């Protein structure tokens, strides 16, 4: 451990430090606002520290971490998303009776876990990052513990996550048993010359994929998604949809790029099956669903399926596409759940389709933002989602994954149906004039609304003028030789 190591780990250190400070403050004086400010500042500071790390070469901290452009970008993405989530959370939790302060501790810890994930190059750090994330989520999901649904979601997530972690650990053990190393690069070296993977190693990687797949919520490890999305508080759902999945995806990309997993037809087959079933299952399950949170959950399953298409392209364009899509998806998801959070009242989250009936005529701006988010999810132009989907399809076609691309297209169409359905519901004339829920104090309301407005603008900006983001991603990937090589 050298001083430079610490410098490079600065974002993580800042987060850790923030947790400690918060705990001390809580011990002394419980105050929602102060903790919120500390949290937000820590995210901002951590993000700011990233500017110091913009390098074109990778910095390796043996044996567990590497800080390269890819990692920095993903950390940045995660930090900003967490910041947005925390901003949405403030208004959301302000009106709830639960103790609020621990929430921020857990949020920061979970973010930390995700950040660890995306810079991991070792099974140990992978595992630890994943578990920090998981354990925080175990508590975040049932955070509103007096709600039976929250508790139910919590226990489901806990048992299933632990269960899949066990698989992953066993898989790691098998890989270790087979190769004698737990570093990605070591693994890559030991299989570099092989045309086919030894069975034990393959099984190990397969079992690791179970753990990763669970976190990503892809078929057949997807079944927790709707229940957890529904049960968790809206900001936490946003967090799961974005940071949790994004972090794991970053890791997956890094792992596969490092070991060049796409050489092996077995793995390709597995991913193909998973991607196609994910797309179909997600979209079909969402089709005539009445609960908005569940719709978004199912849609996230299919979106991960889409991302896997680009993932399977297995080249630089694929990684660019994934990254771009993730940015778009982050904006969209946070925006969508932000709207859900904003419309939620003290007793329950606004999750039934009926809650959205005639929203456009009651709260036009909120409805407009939500529509924009949904259109982005559907991949309609002028939104970031369109460019993202375009990028993915482009990556797929570039690698001639015709089957997958055609499936993606079919599924986009199925998906359209339910996104548009929500919009249609919002445009309906409400039968009875609903009383707009009691508004929060303006300052708090403005924070949420402002966040949403920023997200919407960002969405349209990226959708109309994606050049900047594309350029950024391409620049960032330059520092990752494994990706550029392909």
């Amino acid at each position: 451990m050298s001083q430079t190591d610490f410098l490079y780990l600065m974002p993580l250190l800042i987060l850790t430090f923030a947790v400690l400070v918060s705990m001390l403050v809580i011990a002394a004086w419980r105050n929602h606002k102060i903790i919120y400010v500390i949290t937000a500042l820590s995210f901002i500071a951590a993000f700011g520290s990233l500017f110091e790390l913009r390098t074109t070469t990778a910095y390796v901290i043996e044996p567990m971490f590497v800080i390269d452009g890819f990692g920095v970008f993903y950390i940045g993405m995660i930090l900003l998303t967490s910041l947005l989530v925390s901003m949405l959370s403030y208004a959301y939790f302000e009106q709830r009776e639960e103790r609020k302060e621990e929430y921020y501790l857990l949020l920061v810890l979970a973010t930390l876990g995700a950040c660890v994930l995306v810079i991991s190059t070792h099974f140990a750090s992978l595992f630890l990052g994943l578990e920090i994330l998981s354990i925080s989520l175990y508590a975040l999901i049932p955070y509103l513990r007096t709600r039976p649904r929250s508790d139910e979601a919590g226990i489901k997530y806990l048992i299933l996550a632990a269960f899949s972690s066990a698989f992953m650990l066993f898989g790691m053990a098998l890989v270790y048993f087979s190769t004698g190393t737990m570093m990605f690069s070591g693994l890559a070296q030991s299989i570099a010359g092989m045309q086919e993977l030894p069975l034990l190693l393959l099984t190990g990687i397969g079992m690791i994929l179970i753990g990763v797949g669970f976190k990503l919520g892809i078929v057949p490890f997807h079944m927790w998604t709707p229940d957890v999305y529904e049960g968790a508080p809206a900001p936490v759902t946003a967090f799961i949809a974005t940071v949790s999945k994004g972090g794991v995806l970053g890791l997956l990309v890094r792992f596969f790029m490092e070991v060049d997993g796409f050489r092996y037809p077995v793995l390709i087959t597995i991913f193909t099956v998973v991607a196609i079933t994910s797309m179909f299952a997600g979209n079909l399950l969402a089709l005539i669903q009445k609960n908005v949170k569940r719709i978004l959950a199912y849609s996230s399953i299919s979106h991960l399926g889409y991302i896997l298409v680009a993932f399977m392209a297995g080249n630089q364009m694929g990684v660019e596409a994934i990254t771009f899509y993730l940015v778009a998806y982050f904006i969209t998801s946070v925006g969508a759940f932000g709207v859900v959070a904003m419309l939620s009242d003290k007793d329950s989250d606004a999750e039934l389709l009926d809650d959205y009936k005639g929203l456009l005529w009651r709260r036009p701006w909120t409805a407009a933002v939500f529509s924009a988010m949904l259109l982005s999810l559907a991949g309609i132009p002028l939104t970031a989602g369109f460019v993202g989907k375009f990028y993915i399809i482009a990556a797929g076609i570039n690698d001639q994954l015709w089957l997958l691309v055609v499936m993606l297209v079919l599924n986009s169409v199925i998906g359209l149906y339910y996104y548009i359905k929500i919009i249609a519901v919002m445009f309906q004339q409400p039968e009875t004039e609903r009383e707009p829920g009691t508004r929060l104090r303006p300052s708090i309301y403005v924070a949420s609304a402002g966040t949403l407005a920023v997200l919407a603008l960002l969405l349209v900006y990226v959708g109309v003028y994606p050049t900047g983001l594309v350029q950024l991603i391409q620049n960032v990937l330059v520092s990752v030789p494994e990706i550029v090589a392909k």
Partner: protein
Amino acid sequence: MTPAHMEAALMLAGVLFMLGLISVLIRRNIIFMLISVEIMLNAAGLAFIVAGSKWVQPDGQVMFIFILTMAAAEVSVGLALILQIYHQLKTLDSDAANLMKG
């Protein structure tokens, strides 16, 4: 130890893992499920130890320690949650906890 022995040890880990797995599948009591998951984690730890001693490296044991930590943290959060669930639902039946479906 002979290589066959090493594989037997790994096999033991596999058997224990499967026993934990089968238990998760059949149990409705949440505490039992938690215990079963612990069995599985323990089996995974065993596999790491086996692998570590196969390569004569400390890494396997280090991983075991990490697993241990994680298991402890997980159990503590899990138990707290179970307490909460019992408080809210008055049951430990996981099948009863299906307010959300479809």
